[in-house]
């Protein structure tokens, strides 16, 4: 199975672990991640302005590159996934934007949202299958109690992202089970971590983080996994009461598959 891969800036700097272990694990699972040759920053935040297209062009370029190769586009960073998936949805449904973008890009054939955007977790669930992962696990993380933290970017807006039930998601819990560990469900796993306001209102970010971490601890979690570099930073930097190890889900996957 070969997929085009869009890593994004953060995975080349702060979040190198997320990327490294994803690649190693994919190899074991028989998935080839072909990094796009010339990708640009996705923009990091989905631009809400409806009357300009410049901020959405880089996402369309990545989508178009995957289309040319006839491959699905694999993403890993929550923010990149969020932006690229939403821009793709715009290209499928917003005729005005379709026209403007294609007029600007002057592609051989207009891009109208043909590429399928797949997050690494979706790839594990839908293309590989959690049962298959179970078979490949050589080092099951038996007895480890792990809380999944989804954050907001993967789940919402749910009609566009179509990732999981936004109020009661289960994909990361299923993932935890597949590597032999025990999922701990916390009620705040789908709440915003406050990462976006941590510069502006540090107190609020700290309050959100403490709530998430203390609730995970009360339920007996030993660590928290995430797919989002911003959540990772925020959960670690802004916790004031308790500390729990925060790790990327790919790191645990690599550990279970014996390639860490």
């Amino acid at each position, binding site marked *: 199975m070969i997929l085009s891969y869009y890593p994004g800036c953060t995975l080349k700097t702060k979040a190198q672990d997320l990327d490294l272990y994803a690649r190693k694990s994919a190899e074991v699972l028989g998935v080839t991640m072909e990094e796009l040759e010339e990708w640009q920053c996705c923009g990091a935040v989905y631009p809400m302005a409806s009357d300009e297209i410049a901020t959405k062009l880089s996402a369309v370029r990545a989508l178009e590159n995957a289309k040319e190769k006839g491959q699905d586009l694999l993403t890993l960073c929550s923010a990149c996934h969020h932006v690229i998936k939403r821009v793709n949805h715009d290209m499928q449904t917003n005729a005005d934007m379709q026209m403007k973008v294609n007029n600007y890009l002057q592609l051989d054939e207009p891009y109208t949202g043909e590429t399928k955007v797949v997050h690494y977790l979706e790839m594990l669930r839908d293309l590989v299958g959690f049962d298959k992962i179970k078979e490949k696990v050589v080092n099951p993380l038996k007895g480890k109690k792990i809380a999944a933290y989804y954050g907001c970017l993967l789940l919402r807006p749910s009609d566009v992202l179509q990732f999981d039930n936004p*109020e009661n998601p289960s994909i990361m819990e299923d993932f935890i089970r597949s590597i032999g560990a025990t999922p701990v469900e916390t009620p705040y796993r789908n709440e915003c971590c406050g990462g976006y306001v941590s510069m502006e209102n540090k107190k609020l970010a700290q309050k959100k983080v403490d709530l998430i971490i203390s609730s995970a601890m009360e339920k007996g979690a030993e660590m928290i996994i995430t797919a989002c570099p911003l959540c990772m930073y925020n959960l670690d930097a802004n916790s004031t009461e308790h500390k729990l190890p925060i790790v990327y889900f790919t790191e645990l996957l690599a550990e279970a598959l014996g390639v860490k």
Partner: protein
Amino acid sequence: MQKIGVFICHCGTNIAATVDVEAVTEAIKNEPGVVYAANYQYMCSENGQALIKNAIAEYGLTGVVVCSCSPRMHEATFRKAAQEAGLNPYMVEIANIREHCSWIHKDKVEATEKAIILARAAIAKVHLNAPLISGQSDVTKRALVIGGGIAGIQTALDIAEAGFEVDIVEKSPTIGGKMAQLDKTFPTLDCAACILTPKMVDAKSNDKITLYTYSEVESVKGFVGNFEVSIRKKARYVNTDLCTGCGECTTKCPSRKAKSEFNMGLMNRGAIYIPFAQAIPNVATIDPQYCIHMKTGKCGLCEKVCSAHAIDFKQQDEIVEQKYGAIVMATGFNLINLDQFDEFGYSKYPDVVTSLEFERLMNAAGPTEGTLLRPSNHEHPHTLVFVQCVGSRDTSGCGKPYCSKICCMYTAKHAMLVRDKYPDTEVYVFYIDVRTPGKNFDEFYRRAVEQYGVHYIKGMVGKVTDKDGKLIVQGSDLLENKQLKIEADMVVLAAAVEPDPSARSVASMLTASIDTNDFMTEAHAKLRPVESPTAGIFLSGMAQGPKDIPETVSQASACAAKVIGLLAKDHLVNNPCVAQSNELRCNGCSNCEKVCPYGAISYIEKEVNDHGVREVRRIAQVNEAVCQGCGACTVTCPSGAMDLKGFSTNQIMAEVDAICR
């Protein structure tokens, strides 16, 4: 050449504000055949009708065109007026310049042009109209009521009271519906069972009423006055003639896995069960999905303990065929599924319940015998949070766009009853708006707030979580502009109502229309609210839209009045706009017979004279009493032999020509 009068209605400003009615009058004055044209403010009023009648007499009109609202609104009015003036009513045509023109256009010049074109089309059609004479059909003096809740019961009782036979078909083993599950009823707080169960008994003992419980409508054929219905009586595996309802079998049944429907799954029932003590009919039913004997051949305990020898494991479904003059849709409602509302934790926390479950938890005949206990640990709750509008007035797509209408009142009732019975409790109600229009309704709500000290909070709950065995309710108080966190023992969700899932399939069997929310559509939202646009189909209760018990009962009686009006007639005047077959063109292919939804077409061998050649041919024949004039045959006929009186191909082509002129 016809002598045609054209009458243009202003409909107040409905038409006149967008269509220049004077210009239309001027423009069609000189159309061929038009000998009189006039406009008037309200053509449907007495004066307007007089205008038409006088013109018919004065100018000897042979055809009339009224440019007004939809023919569904006033075609009958104008036909009647013409008839009174001595004209055949089918010489009247309506040009719909309101719904099809003024209401949907803004530009007066364009709308006026369109109105003129529509008028010309109608004039062109009238030129080819011929007088039609209506036939008659008989009326079967028996009504069918689908649904045995309070709506169906009331409608049936009222119809029976007038002396007509009426059958109730109810899909569950007992009549009574949702009302039977309620504890007390607002705004008087009388116990639901005390006012409902006598009515259930009345329905059973009335010799004009036949109950088909645990039964479903299988198919419907025919038309107003002459419906042919098959009813499937599902096998109960209990002989209802022998069963005495003693309940011995239900207590002895060792299978205890089935959830009690009556108690909203809050307790289990046996595989053989009587839904509740006051069930009508008071007989047992075996649920084959859970019956050990029916699954494995073992057990059979019920058979052994039944002294009446009523158990019959070999019983089969039974089909009953019956004829009816009228059919009432009283299929009722359900609460929506809360899968889309996981933020409230309904699927996760047993102490988060729906309002209907809460009714059972407060009810003396419920799983806790009327003592309010937390489902999780059977302890007394101290703090309760009620959340209104769960899925109602929801435009996100997860819920329903409409207001469920009953939740504000029953939540006030719940809150008041809890505070009354357990003064040590704190009760909070989250609301978007409190809507309490109705006799003594707002007074009732105020009592909850002022007398019983219920904390009403304007705002919505965002999340329900758990901590140390308590529910943490996170919500916003919009008036104080702050976020709240309430530690609660129970959360009660006022889930939106929706039509019963059976409504859709039953409606399609009846060819009765439903709206985007699956509620039945009325023939007219204001003026014919208890009739379906399909003749002979009537609407009762929640099937038509959200309503409380007083309103349901009023509507059920209104519905009965309409049914009685129909059944009181010995004959119905048929629509003369029926299909007819041209014997010489018919090639006997049978296509029309196959598409006719009413079975009105048959084939006969007949000698015809085709331009001097006499031969016996197989030709189509239309039974005019059965044909409903739908026109399916006319478009199916490959040789153009089928035509519809009043809507002939020639007439329609003339209209098209006039529009394209």
